């Protein structure tokens, strides 16, 4: 379980990134964070992975296995980043090295994070591609030859290749058409079940989150507005209602 306890982030220029955010992600759970652009979704991830600019003040605690992740040494965190906690950044389609073929991309991740011999690596690459539903014939392709949906799936495969058990996905649906989004829902559900992964998904795509998550947090201006729980998603806040309205198309009167 990961527990974020009153996490606050203050940027050097005085801007508040997030304020007093607390929530927990249970083992094997899928949690979603919903919010407008600029609401502070990505800031939470950046604080978690230590990707914030220098001199940014981070307060609060992130508890994992009875340790505060914000306090452990960078050298120790280095071995958790990627190996235990995986991140699919916002522009996942652009993070693939354009000079490496699909197989080399995956091989690189496996070599960095796990100890497998050559034959095992080959087999692992094949299982990974099968898992994300990409034909083996694409192994020799370069990222530029893939469609947007395929690039996202390769990035996801690479994330799983690292052996991470906790995946943090930042806006995985950007750049995907609605049909590919629907395929991604199916894929994530399958992978999560098979590999018993814990997922945190950041998105402003309401139908996407609704289909995947057990719990959804709505955040705005760096604060949690409300928390929706599994039994039934029902928005009570003004912002939440507007999200639902715009997605459903009930024009404001």
């Amino acid at each position, binding site marked *: 379980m990961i527990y974020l306890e009153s996490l606050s982030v203050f940027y050097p220029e005085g801007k508040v990134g997030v304020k007093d955010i607390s929530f927990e992600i249970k083992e094997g759970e899928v949690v979603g964070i919903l919010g407008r652009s*600029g609401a502070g979704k990505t800031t939470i991830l950046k604080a978690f992975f230590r990707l914030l600019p220098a001199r940014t003040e981070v307060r609060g605690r992130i508890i994992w296995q009875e340790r505060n992740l914000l306090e452990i040494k960078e050298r120790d965190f280095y071995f958790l980043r990627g190996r235990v906690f995986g991140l699919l950044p916002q522009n996942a389609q652009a993070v693939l090295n354009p000079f490496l073929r699909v197989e080399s991309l995956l091989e690189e991740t496996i070599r960095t994070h796990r100890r497998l011999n050559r034959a095992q690596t080959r087999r692992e690459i094949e299982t990974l591609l099968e898992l994300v539903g990409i034909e083996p014939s694409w192994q020799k392709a370069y990222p530029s030859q893939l469609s947007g949906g395929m690039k996202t799936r390769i990035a996801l495969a690479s994330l799983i290749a690292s052996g991470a058990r906790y995946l943090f996905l930042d806006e995985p649906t950007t750049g995907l058409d*609605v049909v590919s989004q629907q395929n991604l829902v199916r894929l994530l559900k399958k992978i999560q079940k098979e590999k018993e992964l814990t997922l945190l998904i950041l998105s402003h795509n*309401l*139908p996407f989150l609704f289909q995947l998550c057990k719990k959804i947090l709505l955040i705005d201006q760096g604060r949690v507005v409300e928390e929706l729980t599994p039994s*039934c998603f*029902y928005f009570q806040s003004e912002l939440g209602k*507007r999200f*639902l309205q*715009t997605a*459903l198309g009930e024009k404001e009167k």
Partner: protein
Amino acid sequence: MTYQLEVKNLSKTFKKRGEAFYALNQISFSLEKGELLSLVGPSGSGKSTLARILVGLIAPSEGEIFFEGEKLAFPFSRSFRPRLQMVFQEPAGSLNPRRKILELVAEPLLINKVPKLQAKIKAEEMILKMGLKKEHLFRFPAQVSGGEIQRVALARALIVNPEVLLLDEITSGLDPLTAWEILDLLIKLNQETNTTIIFITHNLLFARQFFPRIIFLFQGKLVGEISPEKISLLPPAQEMLAVAELQQKTLESSLSPPKA
């Protein structure tokens, strides 16, 4: 009767490993002045190719386009170009990062030989009309948010008073609330100035909220149409509709409070 825009048997082929690949295959449709049309299709269906041909960025391989009864010849003449304007999916890429917003919006007028001062006054008016504030005028594109950039790109397209506005996936990178605000603004504009709007998207659920007429594209072919007068859908369009309905159902399930 003459339509404002009439597309007849339009095709575009690209060479792909020596073989002809149909990006667009015999597309025909027509639009009346002031109509709101949405083009819906998955990635790779030819939506952007169609838009690029309509504004004259690329020439079609076959077929004809008529604008108010007159056949358009490629390349379009300079005096014709302002009448059809397009806004791209990633406007940040089409805006000079070293120019301030006011200059960027005034630029199309300067190209069309409007005196500098007059151009700036008009540009400011248009920027404010798009819902931006005075403080944005002297910022650089990198200093404003994604939604604001889209408003700048729209102001830049609208400042030459186009008769047809083509919007290529302008909302797909925005959060739904911002996207909604921008679309709402455009629909009001359509009512005010009777500008024809062609909105390209892959999000049918979103298109249905604003556009009475929707055309479906799939692998370069027209596969369906929804309009107040008729509904005709081939299987690929039916599939798109099914996805939209599934999403709608998921969302509707959370409209009512949980039973205690």
